[in-house]
């Protein structure tokens, strides 16, 4: 399943390459991986003259990637009766919205289609009011709505959301982004009338706390800058960028030059951290996920409680997600492992970019953006990127989408097929030691 993502990207890049808007096939492959993994970083040349067909394909890739290949396949019945069960969790979806996988995939599809349709109508009307032609207003509204709900980031014009010069459109898209950031299991719960479940959810509460703290720091940092520091610019541009980064959407309402040169270094770093942490698990958002940070925080609380409790006491720390659940060692181990893998990837990607001559802050920012599938770029990701950097960023996007563990299992399987004897020896030794 993990391999299917890259195989799909290899085929999906063909129409992009044939459009003539990419310097070489690798650029087209980068774009395809960016589309399917809902990263949203683009290396297209002359986007403003791209055909409707090629643009539609870019956003179809976002829809497929955001919902998941398996979700799309099962919803369309491609896998036959009861198909896709084993594959569902292998693309980074460990949670069943409902016990039945087929119903889960159909629910996810219905939610996505409903929100995208409503957003398309609203944004389309606003675009028509702004003076766009009917066909362009309709298509642009559909495309940005898909991109917003999938928290992806592609836009049909090179100026991103700035092109529309509309505060109303930005607000509507922010609302759609929020809907995409909420996990689908919580969507199901809300639709059943249990709205209070949302506000009891540990991850949701932790998200609000995280946003409160980080936005306070961001506001203090950004307000001290020379530009983009007055109230209207802060409220409109900076707050949109904060939410775009937190949700790993990647919409930009400032230019890369404004991001690097005019925002304070603190504000710039905070946007990178927001992308790194990402959104809620089980949603279309990327990043490490707030759930894992919450579990690590809970494990710290558990360790502190254990240190203060008598030896004979049994300390239990729980979290709430559709019911009270204990924080187990396995959950903490998984969270810690994935966070470590993300951080290592951020660092390695940044070092590779620095080795190619990019500035350290920009290298770190773009490396985090790729691995967390954020999509914001400070200028490193652009047509004409060095080959090795491009390849590593493709690997980062792929690994981030699969949340690392699936990819590592795939790599282990590949290695096992290449050197089966050595692996068999290792497994036998391990069994003997345990026996």
């Amino acid at each position, binding site marked *: 399943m993990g391999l299917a993502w890259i195989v799909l990207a290899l085929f999906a890049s063909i129409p992009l390459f044939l459009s003539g808007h990419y310097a070489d096939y690798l650029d087209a492959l980068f774009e395809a991986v960016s589309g399917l993994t809902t990263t949203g970083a683009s290396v297209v040349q002359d986007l403003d*003259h791209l055909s409707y067909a090629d643009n539609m394909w870019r956003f179809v890739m976002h829809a497929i990637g955001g919902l998941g290949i398996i979700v799309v396949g099962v919803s369309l019945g*491609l896998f036959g009766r009861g198909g896709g069960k084993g594959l569902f969790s292998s693309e980074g979806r460990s949670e069943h919205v409902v016990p039945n996988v087929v119903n889960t995939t159909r629910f996810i599809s219905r939610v996505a289609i409903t929100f995208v349709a409503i957003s398309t109508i609203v944004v389309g009307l606003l675009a028509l009011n702004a003076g766009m032609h009917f066909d362009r207003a309709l298509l642009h509204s559909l495309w940005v709505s898909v991109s917003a709900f999938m928290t992806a980031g592609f836009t049909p014009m090179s100026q991103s959301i700035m092109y529309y010069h509309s505060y109303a459109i930005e607000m509507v898209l922010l609302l759609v982004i929020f809907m995409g950031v909420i996990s689908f299991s919580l969507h199901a719960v809300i639709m059943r009338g249990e709205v209070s479940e949302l506000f009891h959810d540990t991850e949701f509460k932790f998200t609000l706390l995280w946003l409160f703290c980080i936005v306070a720091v961001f506001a203090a940092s950004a307000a001290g800058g020379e530009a983009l520091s007055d109230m209207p610019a802060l409220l409109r541009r900076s707050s949109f960028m904060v939410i775009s980064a937190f949700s790993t959407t990647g919409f930009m309402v400032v230019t890369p030059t404004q991001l690097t040169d005019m925002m304070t270094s603190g504000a710039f770093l905070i946007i990178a951290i927001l992308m790194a942490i990402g959104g809620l698990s089980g949603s279309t958002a990327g990043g490490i996920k707030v759930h894992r940070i919450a579990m690590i925080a809970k494990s710290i609380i558990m360790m502190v409680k254990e240190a203060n409790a008598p030896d004979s006491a049994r300390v239990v720390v729980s979290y709430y997600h559709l019911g009270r659940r204990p924080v187990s060692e396995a959950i903490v181990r998984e969270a810690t492992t994935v966070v470590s893998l993300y951080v290592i990837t951020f660092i390695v990607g940044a070092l590779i970019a620095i080795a190619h001559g990019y500035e350290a802050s920009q290298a770190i920012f773009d490396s985090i953006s790729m691995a967390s599938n954020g999509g914001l770029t400070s200028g490193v990701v652009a047509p004409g990127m060095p080959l090795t950097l491009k390849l590593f960023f493709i690997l980062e996007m792929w690994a981030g989408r699969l949340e690392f563990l699936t990819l590592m299992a795939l790599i282990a399987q590949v290695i096992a097929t290449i050197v089966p004897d050595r692996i068999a020896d290792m497994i036998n030794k391990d069994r003997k030691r345990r026996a």
Partner: protein
Amino acid sequence: MMNHRDTAYAQRGACGGASWSAGFAREVKASATFAFATCALVGMLLMGALTCALAPASACADELGTANAAQNASANGTVQGSADAAGVPAEEQAGDVEGVSAAEAVSSDAETPGATSVDASEGNYVDPAQTADNSFIYDTSIASLAQEASFHDGRVVQILGEVVGDRISTDAPGHYWITVEAEESNDSSSISVLVSESQAEKIDTYGRYGVVGTRVQVRGVYHQACDEHDGLADIHATSLEVSHPGVEMPDQFVLREFLPGIVLVAVGIALVVLFRIVRERTR
């Protein structure tokens, strides 16, 4: 392992058709509450930060006094004869005019034609709206505006590019946003330009797939973070001239170019059918 919550899902179901619209309404309400709460939180925190911070007010630096004119006279850039916001073409100076002092250059106080020693010919009008600081027009590229944003901030710049996309209305009546893209084939940079209705009417074609938009020469004040437009990087055009009209280049239908796609679709359908057959046989 299913807990009591999962059992409840199975019993109630999550996708009841009759309750879909009610569920969706609750969904929108909850999401809007979450979005509103977060935006309100962000807004309050930003306001709090602003009241505590010592943020200096940033201003469009296009109204500096004449004291800086002498310093600006030695800046690089081709000096055009004189700016003419009314559209009367200005006579170009031959070659560079570096080092010309502000007293000899176009003066903001000279409102009569030929009042300066630089060019006394008739028709070389001075734009009274230009202050001495903006007596030099920086003929530059759109990419340079991004790369040297702080240098060009508040200065009168002149760019050449293709108008793409759409004409977007603004809150100010009689003004529109257009997007001007660089003409160079290896440069896709673009910038938003605020134009008046009369300027916008000169544009006959907006670039898109198969259409090369009107190529225009825009002269105006560049802002790296415009105060009037909430920090947008833009140019407020003082003049817009058409250098080349738009050109339509319609595609021609060539069946041969569709063949790879048709073959791939056929292969994909065949693979899906084969997969289902194999899967059913293994059941």
